């Protein structure tokens, strides 16, 4: 999964003078190091995932994917993503709007707060929910009295996922909206548009590619999250196991084909995300260049 902190930028093709170009052998060594590193740490594991998944043939592969518990894990993962991604879209747009377009006290603090999930270990964020909603937790008694189940059930998993993924959309939009400023919105208002029309016809189209990019990363993380979800899920087969958790269970039961079959789906998701992300960057990069040319 792409690490959010390491943002890839479009390569700059700048003509370099001969004086600053390394000698041929040096170039070869540097490139060999990079390729060897990527090969060992990225490509090889990816190949092994698919190799192990298909070790006993395609039949065993499809059979393990049609297992009832596996299907339920896939459904749960899709459900969690389907809830947490829209929530984060709403939150991300609101936060980015507030930070980029208004001046208020505590703005810097809010910006830092949005980055919190990146700096906190996912296990801790899961644990926080246990301490809050667990039987011995702060709200545990009240929740039990009202018959509300959060922990070891879908709501807990969604909460943990939302927490871990909420920076993605916001962080993508904030710099974009800040750069674009208020000019277009003021123009729309002066032409008689109300707030909603301004948002719908002007603000949203201006940030749509950035938004899509954020949603993509958010979705990838929502489906792949392990740590936080693991703490709050309770690992109940067929009920509260998401795909990453299910991979672990199958693997611990020495069901290599089953584990790697599910893992191959997650790896496939990562690859699709990567391709879409690259396509978006090409598109989105052109968009940004066009705005700058204004």
């Amino acid at each position, binding site marked *: 999964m792409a690490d959010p902190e390491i943002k890839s930028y479009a390569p700059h093709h700048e003509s370099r003078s001969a004086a600053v170009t390394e000698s041929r052998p040096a170039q070869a060594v540097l490139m060999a190091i990079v390729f060897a590193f990527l090969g060992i740490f990225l490509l090889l594991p990816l190949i092994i995932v698919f190799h192990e998944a298909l070790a006993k043939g395609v039949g065993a592969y499809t059979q393990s994917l049609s297992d009832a518990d596996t299907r339920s894990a896939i459904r749960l993962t899709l459900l969690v993503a389907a809830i947490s991604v829209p929530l984060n879209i709403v939150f991300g747009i609101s936060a980015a709007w507030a930070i980029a377009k208004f001046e208020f006290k505590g703005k810097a603090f809010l910006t830092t707060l949005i980055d919190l999930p990146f700096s906190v270990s996912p296990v801790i964020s899961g644990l926080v929910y246990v301490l809050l909603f667990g039987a011995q937790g702060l709200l545990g008694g009240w929740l039990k009295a009202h018959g509300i189940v959060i922990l070891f059930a879908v709501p807990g998993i969604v909460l943990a996922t939302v927490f871990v993924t909420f920076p993605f959309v916001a962080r993508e939009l904030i710099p974009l909206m800040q750069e674009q400023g208020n*000019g*277009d919105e*003021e*123009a*729309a*208002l*002066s*032409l*008689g*548009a*109300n707030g909603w*029309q301004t948002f719908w*016809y*002007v603000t949203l*189209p*201006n940030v749509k590619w950035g938004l899509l990019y954020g949603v993509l990363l958010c979705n990838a993380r929502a489906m792949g999250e392990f740590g936080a979800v693991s703490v709050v899920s309770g690992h109940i087969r067929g009920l509260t196991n998401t795909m990453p958790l299910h991979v672990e269970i199958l693997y611990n039961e020495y069901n290599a084909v089953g584990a790697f079959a599910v893992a191959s789906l997650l790896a496939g998701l990562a690859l699709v995300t990567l391709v879409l992300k690259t396509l978006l960057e090409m598109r989105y990069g052109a968009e940004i260049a*066009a*705005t700058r*040319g*204004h």
Partner: protein
Amino acid sequence: MEVRVANVRKEFDRFPALHDVSLDIKSGELIALLGPSGSGKTTLLRLIAGLELPTRGNIFFGDEDASNKSIQERNVGFVFQHYALFRHMTVADNIGFGLKVRHGPSRPPAQEIRRRASELLDLVQLSGLEKRYPAQLSGGQRQRVALARAMAIEPKVLLLDEPFGALDAQVRRELRRWLREIHDATGHTTVFVTHDQEEALELADRVVVMSQGRIEQVGTADDIYDTPNSPFVYGFIGESSSLPVKVENGEIWLADRPIGLAAPHEPSGEAMLYFRPHDVELLDGCSGCIAGTVAASRRVAGTRRVELEIGGERQRVEIELPVDHPAAQKSRVAFRPGRWKLFPDA
């Protein structure tokens, strides 16, 4: 539509951007707000538009107090400094936007909106560019689209923020004349902000000169240029030279001798004498004149600008001479200002 700004004060974070500003704009008038950056001219424009609300004071549209009305309710056409065209919309959609977002019966059908957009494009001389995107237009074309978009909502007042600021000199001059023609044709009450005095004096019916959040002077180009009412306006509009003088019994003295100018109504004491470098009368002898040694002389377009050292080394003033005037060759020049004004020492 008449616009009246009455005793408006505007503060940003307790820092005053406008102090007690009052201004009457007549219906159909073309007004320039002119001043250096930080003079409050853009703030005043945004207050009239409703993009900002006054801290104190009122803004009237006709007889109606619009002070607390939102920008949507004021129905003003605003042209932004950097145009703020919607980059994902075509030119026609940009112009039609203000009609499209209307509600109920006031919203024209799509076809009517398209027809209006084409009409306005004709008016701004960009027919046939309906399907272009803003990124495919030149700066001057974007400016015209921005104006067409603002006029599409049939505004009561047209407000333009530095309308030609981002264009090169050639296009500026062309658009300036064109804006005047559009104004005369449509008769909108128009207010524009500029820091370019040439633009303001040439284009506007009346010019409002602003400095440090205050209005310094309001008047026609002739008023402003010929009878500036403050040292700031003298210095800001056109070229000016100044000298510290003394008034005694209605006579103006420079150091220890009179310079032949009478100021019967001025109180005695220290003052600054302001005049235009080109508006001077050259003299041969010097009994009652300003005389100085030529310190520098440079050719500026059709004239020669001469820097004179007056009374020792301290005071320097500039005057303009015809290029072939013999005085330009001399080392000593005597003159007397034609039109001049005294301001008491601050």
